């Protein structure tokens, strides 16, 4: 049965310096509040994994939490580049950032293999791209029946997987719906997991297309209404497109970013 913890307790308990951490959620249900708590907890040397790092990863990188990024696309969706990410790769600010780049299908397959307890996944992908030359853990494997060469990617088994969901019950069973991305696979692939939720309810009413993560598959649940802002939680909130646009000038400038960190993350502690 999952523990019900406050967000700060959960991050303190589950995320340690040097951990491999995945915050997942594809445009929908992005666990932004949990990312900010990692910044407040001043975690360092993290290997951050995410299929589509967007502004919460820009913030984590800019705050100096990450040593390495494992990803398949990076950007501020619909707006432009991630300038804290760019600054870290190009100028080692505030600390150097190693990158490991995959394709979306490759990352999704890595989580599936991790969740399945297999050491690697096989896919038709990466062919005709330069990614295998840049990312040494993209290998080829020969089909023992046809001799065809296929791509192999290693299982991704984070130390901590963090996702946001619509609701949980008091036993820590989690229910999420809408675009559910690789959230299930991330939780099942990770040694420890945290799910932040909009609502804690007595009973999970069935919802069409919902995924239920049973309490025994989840380490901790934290009640964080609005925890995916400025992304959205279907049935609870709309995507705040303005916030994504407003991020661009903040992210472009080290001083504005540092001021944003102080005012919007550190002074929010205890709020």
């Amino acid at each position, binding site marked *: 049965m999952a523990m019900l913890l406050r967000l700060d307790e959960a991050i303190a308990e589950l995320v340690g310096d040097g951990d491999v951490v995945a915050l997942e959620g594809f445009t929908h249900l992005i666990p932004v509040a949990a990312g900010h708590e990692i910044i407040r907890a001043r975690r360092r040397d993290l290997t951050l994994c995410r299929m589509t790092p967007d502004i919460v990863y820009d913030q984590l990188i800019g705050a100096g939490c990450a040593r390495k990024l494992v990803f398949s696309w990076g950007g501020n969706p619909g707006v432009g580049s991630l300038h804290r990410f760019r600054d870290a790769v190009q100028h080692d600010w505030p600390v150097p950032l190693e990158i490991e780049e995959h394709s979306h299908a490759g990352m999704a397959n890595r989580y599936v293999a991790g969740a399945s307890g297999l*050491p690697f996944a096989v896919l038709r992908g990466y062919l005709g791209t330069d990614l295998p030359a840049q990312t040494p853990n993209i*290998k080829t494997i020969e089909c023992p029946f046809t001799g065809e060469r296929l791509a192999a990617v290693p299982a991704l088994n984070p130390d901590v997987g963090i996702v946001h969901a619509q609701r949980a019950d008091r036993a820590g069973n989690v229910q999420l719906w809408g675009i559910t991305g690789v959230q299930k696979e991330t939780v099942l692939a990770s040694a420890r997991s945290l799910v932040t939720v909009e609502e804690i309810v007595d009973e999970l009413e069935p919802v069409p297309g919902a995924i239920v993560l049973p309490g025994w598959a989840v380490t901790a649940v934290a009640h964080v209404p609005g925890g995916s802002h400025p992304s959205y939680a279907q049935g609870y909130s709309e995507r705040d497109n303005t916030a994504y646009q407003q991020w661009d000038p903040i992210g472009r400038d080290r001083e504005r970013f540092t001021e944003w960190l102080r005012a919007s993350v550190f002074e929010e502690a205890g709020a």
Partner: protein
Amino acid sequence: MRDKQCTAEEVAAELRDGMTLGIGGWGSRRKPMALVRAILRSPVKNLRVVSYGGPDVGLLCAAGKVRELVFGFVTLDSIPYDPLFRKAREQEGLAVREWDEGMFYAGLQAAAQRLPFLPIRAGLGSDVPRNDPALRTVRSPYGDGEELLAVPALELDVALVHLNRADKHGNARYLGPDPYFDDLFCLAAKKRFVSCERLVSTAELAEGAPQTLLCNRTMVDGVVEIPRGAHFTSCAPDYGRDEKFQRAYADAPQNGLLSRLVSGSEQDYQAVVQEVS
């Protein structure tokens, strides 16, 4: 959108000698039995059949239609082992690939993903690979170097499934407790045919839980409305298994019904249903 309605005879006529035929359902549950009977009456032979087997397998074997069977099991559920399949297996001439159910799933999944194989741990440490020497292993290309079983894709020429409701475009819904792997059979096949208990409008089909819409029109080439089309297997909640008839089927080698069930007309079959049930 295309009207994909057709007849059981037209479905059977799509089969060619030597083709690989996947059959949905599970044991003696929601098997496309009316479509299977149409195959019994057609001239096709030397089929390679892929099935979580029930009486579909027993009948096709008894009719001499099967050259090779790929299966996880063949059972009638309330009768543990299908006697018609037992008889065929004890004779020479039926090639079998008897796999672990998880391997079978991985083989369908590989075909659905258009991959030639998928690695899996299931089957290792068992006699499955010893009894199927065509199986191979693959070694992880990473530091762990683990050896895994390689399951070849179960590429299907034709898949047959039976569902509770469908529209004429090939969208289809199950209403019982279990989807089985009918969607995966369709995704693994080149030509896909759904028989259904009742053909309804798309609007009516859309009412109800979205996750029970198992097959959509991009996965289906033909739809046949056949009420009681899964008889004598179960088709919950429309009807349960016809246990009396299944008993008579299992006793068919002794009770004189075998030729009427295997090589009779559809009228013969329905007459036996009237006599037995």
